[in-house]
């Protein structure tokens, strides 16, 4: 059974139609990449899938629930495009806040904080977040998305603005999460990242113009860059 299913889904802001007639499904335990140029509607689609937008047309089901549905929130992790951190607080204080909002308490919260901080390599970072580098902020942002052990993870351009080494670390971590059964939905416009996905959806002007495995898309278009450029036109 699909973990995400969109049927004839459309989204408008007033008279501006951002997404139109999207139909796709995502299998559990996979990494799906959403490709598209800036402004193609990637973030809007992610927001609809995490329940922050009510579809203006059609429907989106996530974890078997028609969205928006607050009951899905404890099972979903979300890493936004901006870091969305409290600068005055430390990494642990940020994590504790969001962990508590996901109803983690006591030993379980402490254990999860230790685990995710180690996972993103921030166990030793005790200073306020405002002193963090860009890469550290992205890592903490990922840790917050993981703190409650979600089964479905939405990552909106998770590697924007970080160095190649950290990018590699992130993708190793994503692959590790996948082996644990977590489903990942990642937006990106970086081609080498797209190659690491099990499946790619290409958005252009609010519509899906390509859908398949990276290998299928390369076979049909020559290179992934060609798919992207075709999509960007």
């Amino acid at each position: 059974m699909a973990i995400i299913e969109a049927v004839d889904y459309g989204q408008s802001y007033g008279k501006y139609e951002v997404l139109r007639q999207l139909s796709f499904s995502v299998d559990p335990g996979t990494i799906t990449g959403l490709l598209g140029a800036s402004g193609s509607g990637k973030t809007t689609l992610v927001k609809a899938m995490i329940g922050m937008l009510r579809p203006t047309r059609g429907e989106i089901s996530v974890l078997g629930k028609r969205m928006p549905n607050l009951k899905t929130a404890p099972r979903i992790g979300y890493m936004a495009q901006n870091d969305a951190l409290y600068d005055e607080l430390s990494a642990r204080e940020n994590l504790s806040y969001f962990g508590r909002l996901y109803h983690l308490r006591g030993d379980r919260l402490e254990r999860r904080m230790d685990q995710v901080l180690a996972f993103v390599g921030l166990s030793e970072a005790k200073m306020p977040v405002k002193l963090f580098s860009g890469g550290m902020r992205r890592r903490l942002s990922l840790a917050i998305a993981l703190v409650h052990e979600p089964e479905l993870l939405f990552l909106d351009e998770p590697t924007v603005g970080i160095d190649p080494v950290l990018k590699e670390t992130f993708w190793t971590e994503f692959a590790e999460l996948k082996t644990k059964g977590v489903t990942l939905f990642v937006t990106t416009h970086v081609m080498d990242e797209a190659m690491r996905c099990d499946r790619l959806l290409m958005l252009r002007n609010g519509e899906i113009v390509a859908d398949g495995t990276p290998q299928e898309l390369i076979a049909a278009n020559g290179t992934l860059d060609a798919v992207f450029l075709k999509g960007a036109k």
Partner: protein
Amino acid sequence: MDAVTVARRVVKQVVKDRRTLALLLFAPLFILFILYTVITSPASRPVVGLVDQQQAYDVLAREAEVVRYDSRKQAERAMDEEKIDAYWAGETFVVEGTSRSRSKLSEAALSKTLAVMGAGGMRIEAPDIEYLYSSGDATLFDTLAPALMGFFIFFFVFIIAGISFLRERSTGTLERTLATPLALRDLVAGYFIGFFLFVSVQTVLIQWFIVNVLDVPQNGDYLLLLFVNLLIATVALTLGLFLSSFARTEFQLFQFIPALILPQVFFSGIFDISEAPRWVELLSSALPLTYAARALVDVMIRGRGFMDITFELLILSGYAIAFVILNLVLLRKERPS
């Protein structure tokens, strides 16, 4: 020239931000018009009760609205009900004293009356002037202090609450928080409780400074005064959270100050608007600070108790509840589930 390039960009940017443009052009005119209307409203004649100096009636009636009373008790009751500014009973002329301007008008009416009667050969003993509340030597600040205290609490709490919530929006932490299972009512309540702790300290500090350091006379219950101030802070807190939804930047939040906050000062008792046009009266009765100032004057100067200011407290509570509900409605738009 590089300066021209910068100037062109500034002009373009301001022209495209209609709210800023409107504020720049019309807000000063709006504030000036309100000030003009309030200040140029004709000074109303004081209302003076006359108990037994009936020979003074005709002369006094030239200077004031005169109401006759059969006994001193009747006049006292009328003053308690805020129907008269002063009354003349025998050898005393009692001035209510909560409004400095109306007190001075009443005193002026008396001295003119005495002068005219004296010139006309009528023998009359000048009465002793007594103040029911405050005293004749109360400074302008003493009489304005209750309204100013309410305004400053309201203003600073509004700014702090508004900017904090705005930052939650602009940094994306609000969106991330809304992506958790947190109920919206818990978000609003949590914000409220968290800020209320600091707002309470700020309120206590302002009240302590005005009453204990600046030595402004305080005739009422200190704790009741604190309760009123905390209720004012509550209204400002909920209003700040609400209005922050309509601003994308701190600059836009500040734009609400001349439009929505400043006019409240003019109508909150600092100026006498009893003779101002009807629209001023209507506008004044729609603004929370009007009720705040009334309650503060009642407690601080008149020394009244909880039951006497129930109406004002209910109105202020109503504003706070309404702003909380509006906050929830707006947040539901941001997270529809």
